[in-house]
């Protein structure tokens, strides 16, 4: 096996994996505080990308593009929670989750109408240059992706570990009911977490756009691949979800490079199916753990 080919596949995989990792983290955090799987998670990545690229094409300074797109993601995340989830908080989770799907469709539709069918592009933050690592050629923008993801993850994990609201989020992930009884205001917390998840997704969408273009219907793929990461973390562990997201990015890149670029999605989704089948099949011999709701 040629090492430079390996690196040439690994690093771009890591780059897209960063996006999946942030989506996976968003899934897990939202689910922890609200028990809701937010199917609109991937759409925030798409929105961040198209909003930033569209603003940039309209001569808005780059820094402002980045900030506005991220803020838009956070704002929409908060709006989604306030307008479509807060009013139905006591409804069955099935209803709440189906609502997030409707929101995803609306976000896609809005992007299609507002920004058009064609993919939008945007130059790298510090030019479109490349650099070389171990014989592999990587766009400079990748550094921005890795750096901003690392920074964002560091902030979020520091927040979870060392602040009161962060501890509250972790308490919710262990036992939502008990956290409520202990005085955690899950309403406010959910609002904040949806905003953070929306903003983080949008920022990921902005930084990846110079590498992969921004397209109105890219949200499902981001969502589904992030979901795989989240499910590896059992929708509970933020850390494993992040690692899962990174792993899916790398797996996808290797599948495209070593096997077939046409089949790369099929392979990644096949892994999800296989994982679920094994997880489900295991219980044929074992025993389900059920929670009373």
């Amino acid at each position, binding site marked *: 096996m040629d090492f430079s080919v390996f690196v040439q596949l690994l690093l771009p995989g890591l780059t897209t994996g960063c996006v999946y990792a942030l989506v996976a983290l968003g899934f897990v955090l939202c689910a922890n505080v609200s028990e809701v799987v937010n199917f609109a998670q991937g759409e925030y990545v798409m929105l961040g990308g198209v909003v930033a690229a569209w603003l940039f094409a309209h001569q808005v300074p780059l820094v402002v593009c980045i900030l506005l797109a991220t803020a838009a993601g956070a704002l929409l995340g908060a709006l989604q929670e306030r307008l479509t989830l807060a009013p139905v908080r006591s409804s069955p989770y099935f209803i709440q989750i189906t609502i997030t799907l409707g929101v995803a*469709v*609306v976000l896609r539709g809005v992007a299609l109408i507002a920004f058009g069918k064609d993919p939008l592009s945007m130059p790298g933050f510090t030019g479109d240059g490349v650099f070389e690592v171990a014989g592999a050629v990587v766009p400079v923008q990748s550094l921005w992706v890795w750096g901003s993801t690392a920074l964002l993850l560091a902030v979020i994990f520091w927040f979870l570990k060392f602040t009161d609201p962060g501890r509250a989020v972790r308490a919710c992930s262990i036992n939502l009911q008990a956290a409520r009884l202990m005085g955690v205001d899950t309403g406010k917390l959910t609002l904040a977490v949806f905003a953070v998840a929306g903003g983080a997704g949008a920022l990921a969408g902005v930084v990846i756009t110079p590498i992969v273009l921004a397209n109105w*219907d890219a949200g499902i793929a981001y969502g589904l691949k992030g979901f*795989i990461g989240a499910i590896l973390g059992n*929708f509970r562990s933020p850390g494993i979800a992040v690692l899962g997201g990174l792993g899916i990015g790398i797996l996808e890149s290797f599948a495209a490079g070593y096997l077939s670029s046409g089949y790369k999605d099929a392979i990644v*989704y096949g892994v999800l199916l296989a994982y679920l089948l094994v997880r*489900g*099949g295991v219980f*044929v011999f074992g025993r389900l753990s059920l929670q009373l709701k």
Partner: protein
Amino acid sequence: MKSAIAIAAMVLAVALYPFVLPGAYPLGIGIITGALAAGTVGFVLLLGYAHQLALGQAGFCMVGGYASAILCVNYKWDPLAALVVGAALAMATAWAIAAPILKLRGFVLAMASLALHLILIVMALEMPFTGGALGTYGVPKFALFGLALTSDLAFYFVVWAIVLAFVLVGLAIDRSRIGRALKALAASESAAMSVGIDITRYKVQMFVLSAGMASVCGSLGVHYLRAMDPNVFGFAFSLNFITAVIVGGLMSIWGGVAGAAIITGLRELLRGLSLPLWEGVIMGALTVIVLIAFRRGVAGFLSLLYERFTAGKEPQRVALAPPDLSSLSTIGTGSAKLEVSGASRSFGNLKAVNNVSLTVETGSITALIGPNGAGKTTLFNLIGGYQPLDAGAVRFDGRRIETLLPNEIAQLGIGRTFQNLQLFDTMTVLDNVMCGHHRFVAKENKNRETALRALAFVGLKGAEALLPGELAFGHQRLVEIARALALEPRLLLMDEPASGLNDSETERLAELILRIAALGITVLLVEHDMRLVMGLADHVVVMHHGEQLAHGPPDVVRKNSAVIQAYLGVEHVAA
């Protein structure tokens, strides 16, 4: 009556439509609507009844579409045979995926079915026999038993005849024991399992059935389009299914038909207005709005109108008959002994239940008591199969049951009630209790009769037609007990039956429990209320910090100093 009117209305509308709106364009819309309805009727059973969200339903349309296109074009198959083979293939695929995956809880089917769909799209693009991105062209017109349907009008009627057949299947399921089980699991999975409903099995059945119907939708669509390519049934088509069923009405088979008509009409309207890009926004917004504002959708709205129209004046006040003690005299299949030995269960470092052994003697009333956090409810859930044991064994009637699922345990004749009421709040009191009889595959008359007798026994005769939410809290507790009795249990587990009841209600509950025991049913109850327990139980087991502290007859346990200490603190013992 309501369905008869609905069926007549549908038949009439379908028959008149081509003559009221003649021409090829309206007829085409009629065919597309019918093809979509064939799929959405199945989808109602999945989404509305089994509460399983599938994001890749269009994948099964692809299976049917490609089966019809490839078999009819490349192999000159008869279209009807190709349609049937496609549906069988779709159902087999659905079963292979759902049977293991649906054992997992949560919303994994949604993403799993989406992943399957996206894999199918990749396969359609890459496989040698699908025609790749260009697809397969020259699909013949549909034919019935070798007779080609040369006119679109004939095809239109065939499509809608299939829809009618699917609707009749759906209505039959709705009225059957399966339909009741589905409504129960949609309302509360825990409670559904407590009466022996195998929730995984019914979810899988609905997924498989809906996949078959989606495949037929795909086949019919392809015979209309006369071509198949990977884009025909994309993600947007899956979303059409979801929007159609939600807007049309989740809780009714008719929601599928109404939704298909609304979605197709809406799309044509937007095309007419040159606003095709708005389709997504409008459909998504409709989904959200209906789910927030009026969850029953258009079909639910029509049904509400019908009820307003036909119902008399105000519903009469319900007068409850006194409990009829003789009504359940024939119940009971013989009670049986429960033995727990060395049961342990930890959550992290907390030993919620630590090496507890107890025996509930045949025909006895045994009470499990202890301060808050003593591990009573956990032990209860271990016995009921709601949580796995870390160690130990549970035997019922001599048989090991600790590895069984809650529904399997219920099937053995162990009924239970819940501390936090778990009633099926969308179903009438009678239907709730009829669910209790699920483990007996009996005629509906027998089910109803058993349920009525159980209701009479607990003193709820007269409340049959109400929804549980319309009853006082104490009466809701009785509904749960009646439901558990309809199981004809040999052992009844009651989790804090007196919580939330006032003094006189608690007194009546005690009488009821004694009457239940008098039927020969073994009773194990978890309770806080010492007065209730001491007056009732033959045998008391005291738990503290996950361990068994004492056991014996109430009088003995009451004087046990360790028990007094656990309940009241050290100083009371000294005094």
